[in-house]
């Protein structure tokens, strides 16, 4: 009987129930979008790292995962190329062009092709002139660019020569010399990729390089280590940020449900009086209010999950290259649970108020 009573209460005020569920869904969407963005962007970075098909990655001295302040003279590329087991060494220059997530990568195309066989193209050709760039499908979609389109990046007009599959090193690939000229970084690169004669030698080569005192403080990692480093745990501040958003979720859930159930209790004062006249205990009244909050929380969770698909669609349509969002189903119950806690807490006060209502006053309520 309790589920029927609760369900009919929810159905009796469809607009209030719908709005409550949607509002409860907002923090769920907020949490799922944030988590989806974290996973999506980090996995995209990891995919693109793996897509380089190098064995070892050398970053500038004292650089971090997301910052490369110092350049590496190109001559260093030759130094690494002479190391035992190194089949090819390719220096690239990465430059943020839109925010910190969108990089243009300058490469020496013949050297890159020699290292891993080159990019896989979905349209067009490799660059034919220094002003040519190749872009990945994400960036092409974001800029609505096709082969032959001209794009202005770093105050320079580039021609799109080709479009490559996603997950191959960079969203935008330009001629290394051209990018060095534009950035006045002549002879500098900021990442070096090493391809070994056999991937089985990766650990040995990595050990040899990191043991070299001249390379102290140089981040030298295997590709797999670098790809794995793109995780939430390695992003400073990201976890606390997620926790803050989760906290906001609890607070929003609390206030939405508190307000909604408070209104509901006021509206149903007479009905609560009727139930009391029938002998309903305080616990029974509280149970009904909490069950209704639980139901609204559940509906809100579903609404939030559905809305997160809306975020996913919007981000994927509007800025697929700048930011990537992933649907992370494992977080559905977590986001729902967090919001549910807020909802139940929010229903406690109105529920206890209803349970303590004087039956005579409640029955006289108009």
């Amino acid at each position, binding site marked *: *009987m309790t589920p*029927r*009573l609760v369900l009919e209460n929810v159905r009796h005020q469809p607009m209030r129930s719908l709005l409550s569920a949607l509002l409860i869904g907002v923090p769920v969407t907020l949490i799922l979008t944030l988590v989806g963005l974290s996973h999506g962007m980090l996995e995209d970075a990891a995919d693109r790292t793996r897509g380089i098909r190098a064995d070892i990655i050398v970053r500038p001295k004292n650089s971090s995962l997301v910052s490369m302040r110092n350049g590496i003279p190109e001559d260093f590329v030759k130094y690494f190329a002479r190391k035992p087991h190194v089949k090819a060494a390719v220096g690239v220059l990465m430059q943020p062009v839109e925010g910190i997530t969108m990089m243009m990568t300058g490469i020496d195309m013949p050297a890159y092709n020699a290292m891993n066989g080159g990019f896989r193209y979905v349209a067009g050709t490799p660059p034919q002139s220094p002003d040519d760039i190749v872009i990945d499908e994400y960036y092409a979609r974001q800029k609505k660019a096709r082969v032959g389109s001209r794009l202005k990046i770093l105050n320079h007009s580039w021609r799109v020569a080709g479009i490559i599959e996603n997950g191959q090193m960079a969203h935008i690939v330009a001629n290394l010399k051209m990018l060095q000229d534009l950035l006045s970084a002549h002879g500098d690169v900021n990442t070096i990729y090493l391809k070994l004669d056999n991937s089985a030698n990766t650990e040995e080569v990595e050990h040899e390089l990191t043991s070299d005192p001249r390379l102290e403080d140089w981040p030298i990692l295997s590709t797999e280590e670098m790809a794995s480093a793109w995780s939430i745990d390695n992003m400073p501040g990201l976890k606390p940020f997620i926790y803050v958003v989760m906290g906001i979720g609890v607070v929003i859930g609390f206030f939405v449900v508190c307000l909604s159930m408070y209104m509901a209790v006021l509206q149903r004062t*007479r009905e609560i*009086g009727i139930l009391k*006249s*029938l*002998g309903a205990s305080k616990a029974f009244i509280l149970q009904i209010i909490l069950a209704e909050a639980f139901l609204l929380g559940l509906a809100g969770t579903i609404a939030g999950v559905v809305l997160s698909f809306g975020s996913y669609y919007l981000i994927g349509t509007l800025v697929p290259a700048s930011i990537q969002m992933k649907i992370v189903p494992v977080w559905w119950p977590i986001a729902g649970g967090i919001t549910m806690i807020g909802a139940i807490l929010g229903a406690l006060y109105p529920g206890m108020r209803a349970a303590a209502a004087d*039956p005579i006053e409640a*029955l006289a309520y108009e």
Partner: protein
Amino acid sequence: MNNGAIIQIRNLHKTYNVGEVDVPALRGVDLTVEKGEFLSIVGPSGSGKSTLFHIIGGLTPPTTGEVRVAGEDLSALTDAGRTRLRRGMVGFVFQKFNLLPNLTARDNIAVARFIAGKNGPPEAGFEEILNMLGIAKRLDHKPNALSGGEQQRVAIARAIVNHPAILLADEPTGNLDTENSRAVLELLRDLNQRLRQTVLMITHNPEAAAYGDHTVHMRDGRVVERT
């Protein structure tokens, strides 16, 4: 003490605190109701009829005095004890019907059974009562689809579904037209005569009061006459 009495009230006082003012609603009521009796209570507004009902029905505690309902001393009951009393001992019928608007007539009756801890459909004999009340075919409608008379009959069915010792009807015909009023009053009398259901009914209407075996007249918080 009268062994056949289901309600025994001695020197009952009830005072409400309205802000900082004490308002006496009952000022020494003495009343005995026999089991199976149909008692009408009449009196002007403010005479204490409803307060007396609320105390007998366990909706509010007495201030002083002795109130025994089916042997239970109400002055000694806690809030939980009065809740238990309402669950099994008394059934209410209100002037405004007071059905739960979200539930069908059937569910309104079922919820009373559920609260009393009884699951499943009512006993076989209850079907006959529903026929007698004339609502057997209207049970799947919500209150807003029922006429006033039908709603009051559903309220009566709900009030007696748990076989309460006492049926308390507070102005049961106050919101009904003459025809429906007569039907409801006859139903109450039928229930009283056929099932020996004890009925206490508040009314302003002398014709309605005449359906009872006896009539108690109240004024200024006291019983002034019993006829």
